[in-house]
């Protein structure tokens, strides 16, 4: 099995980053406190277990049904949006998506973009792409604004700056914005707000994500709590929405239970402060709203997951973040340890489809399979089952044709050979009993150092007599 690798060789891996995160007490406290609070909020938002489980089941069925008709629904969405005056663009890769966004901005001769929170834009690394082309892209969600100010990436899909406490934010604002250091959260928010307010008015283009794209009516639904989403999508003359192809649902009625699941699972809210339903650009008789609306539909590996009946369930995700809030691994190592845009359990099962297993070889195994994620998932993605499947794809030999992008990243002949030996041991009763006899008889000779296990534990010492032995003596009978 895995050998103890010097940590210095691990810096660019999940394990290496985890070592760093585990040593950071401030970070661990920030996450523990925040996740505890989020778990409680979710629990309080679902006081009735019966109702919660019924709703989760319903959410699962709605998403499964939508995915089963995904190609049809996407075409319907495109037709409806186009009829509503929205320009629809298809992007297979993040590169494609960035080029599309850039060309829209260029057509406006735009130089300033203001962005509402969007994980797909993070996936695209849109800020960097645009910055290289001299377009400033400012994050308007408070959490995103904080991480952007600090040159970081989000550490949580809902709360990007959850790894920082208010003292750290106060210091950051003081250092970067030259304001007086204040630990008053309201004052900190006001500082951010004043800075952003002007930007909304100046921006040439507003970018946002999408929570649900409704095929029947051609509506883009966006939830948020700060009002920045509404500002980003209405104040600038052009609005570009970016989203993954899995966000499409059949109709508005489907959205009602999904929305309830989303807001309650994410922050324990009955509903978000803002629910935006965008169905087109400003009409002739309207006073406000953008003159142009675009939607970029991004694949980026999603169709790979879609093609596999089991892994398709990954696309049920409505991005609530409950899986990470409840994950004992995420709580301890934080979002940056995952090294990719989507952290936590959902990140572990969706990222391989986007970047390939070679880039995230430890993602599937960085879980104790405790099942807390699957237990809370509002659309009942069997996350442990997905991890299990990815582990299988991860250890396949090239001849076994792994079915996930860059599968076989952990294929090892040596490890395979060890498991073959384990099979022999466990399928040859005589050999197994001989092993038990030897292990108990020579228990004092059991190795004192058993690799990584003895980092955290004493070496296990076999008992004096095995259960096979004790049971035989006790029952005084051979087989059954």
């Amino acid at each position: 099995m895995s050998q103890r690798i010097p940590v210095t060789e691990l810096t660019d891996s999940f394990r290496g980053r985890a070592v760093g995160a585990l040593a950071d007490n401030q970070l661990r406290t920030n996450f523990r406190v925040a996740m505890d609070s989020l778990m409680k909020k979710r629990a309080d938002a679902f006081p009735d277990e019966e109702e919660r489980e019924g709703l989760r089941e319903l959410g699962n069925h709605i998403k499964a049904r939508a995915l089963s008709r995904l190609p049809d629904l996407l075409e319907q969405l495109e037709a409806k949006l186009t009829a509503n005056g929205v320009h629809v663009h298809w992007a297979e890769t993040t590169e494609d998506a960035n080029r599309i966004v850039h060309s829209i901005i260029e057509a406006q001769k735009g130089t300033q973009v203001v962005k509402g929170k969007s994980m797909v834009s993070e996936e695209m690394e849109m800020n960097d792409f645009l910055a290289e082309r001299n377009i400033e892209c400012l994050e308007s969600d408070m959490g995103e604004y904080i991480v952007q100010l600090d040159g970081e990436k989000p550490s949580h899909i809902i709360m990007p700056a959850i790894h920082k406490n208010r003292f750290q934010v106060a210091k950051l604002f003081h250092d970067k914005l030259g304001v007086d250091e204040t630990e008053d959260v309201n004052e900190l928010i006001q500082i951010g707000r004043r800075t952003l307010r002007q930007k909304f008015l100046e921006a040439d283009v507003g970018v946002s994500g999408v929570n649900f794209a409704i095929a029947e009516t051609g509506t883009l639904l966006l939830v948020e709590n700060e009002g920045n989403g509404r500002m980003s999508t209405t104040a600038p003359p052009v609005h570009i929405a970016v989203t993954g192809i899995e966000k499409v649902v059949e109709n508005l009625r489907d959205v009602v239970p999904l929305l309830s699941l989303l807001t309650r699972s994410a922050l324990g809210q009955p509903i978000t402060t803002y629910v935006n339903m965008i169905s087109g650009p400003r009409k002739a008789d309207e006073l406000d709203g953008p003159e142009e609306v675009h939607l970029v539909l991004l694949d980026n590996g999603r169709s790979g997951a879609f093609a596999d009946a089991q892994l398709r369930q990954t696309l049920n995700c409505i991005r609530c973040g409950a899986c990470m809030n409840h994950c004992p691994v995420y709580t301890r190592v934080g979002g940056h340890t995952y090294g990719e845009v989507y952290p936590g359990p959902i990140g572990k099962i969706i990222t391989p489809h986007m970047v390939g297993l070679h880039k995230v070889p430890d993602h599937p195994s960085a879980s104790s399979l405790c099942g807390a994620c699957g237990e809370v998932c509002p659309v009942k993605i069997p996350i442990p089952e997905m991890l299990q499947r990815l582990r299988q794809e991860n250890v396949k030999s090239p001849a076994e044709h792994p079915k996930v992008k860059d599968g076989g990243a952990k294929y090892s002949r040596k490890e395979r050979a060890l498991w073959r030996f384990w099979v022999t041991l466990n399928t040859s009763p005589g050999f197994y009993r001989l092993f038990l006899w030897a292990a108990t008889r020579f228990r004092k000779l059991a190795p004192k150092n058993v690799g990584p296990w003895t980092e955290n534990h004493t070496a296990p010492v076999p008992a004096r007599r095995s259960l096979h032995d004790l049971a035989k003596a006790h029952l005084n009978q051979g087989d059954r």
Partner: protein
Amino acid sequence: MSELFYDAAPNATRVAPERAKPRTYPARPEEVTLFGTCVVDLFFPEAGLDAIRLLEREGIRVHFPQEQACCGQPAWTSGYVNEAREVARAQLNLLDNGLPVVVPSGSCAGMFRQHYREVFADEPDTLKRVDDLAERTYELTEFLLHVCKVDWQDLGQPTRIALHTSCSARREMNTHLHARELLGKLANVTRLDHDHESECCGFGGTFSVRMPEVSGAMVLDKTRSLRESGAVEMVTADGGCLLNINGSLEKQHQAFRGRHLASFLWERVSGEAMS
């Protein structure tokens, strides 16, 4: 499953489908098979023997097939499906006699009850036998509580304990409340809650050696909250968690220890202080 809905009329799923019904239990059988599990076999054999004694005390004849080995879980959770299937098949053949199977571990019982279906997903004929095994597999506490309907008298001295429930028992077997209820029948036992009780102890089989730093942080937190609970000892119905928690406590030079629930229960109801 999504194919099922392909032809569904739009708007078809308005009401939540019916939820799975809770498990129903048969009357107490005359005979059962004990599947000891490999961890108990080698490291906590007394717990296996105590499980046998607890069952015999209810008037049940216990069989312990000497051909039994591992359920296949380590290979399964490591992604080695073919290897897991071979070992699982050996156990499936061995247990193919219609007797109820009692398992003193939530995770191994979970293999029989849930994961064998996935292991043998490509073999329709085998699946029938898998379903049959799943149907008659019981985690020990579940069996004592719902099938034996035990009525115990606590013969032990007053004590305070913490109960650690494995994630498999909690989330796969849904037996997390059974141990509590069993302990509740013991008049002199006070069960104390501990901090973050529902959180994983960090074992996760090979996770503990593949991600030793993260796993180590988890078990350190778990052992701390167990020690701070005010209990004098910890009990658990899962050998894997026990190996993890006790190994960590010993490494930390802590006196506090855990033991298998079967041994604790046997001591209380038999009045025998076991080694």
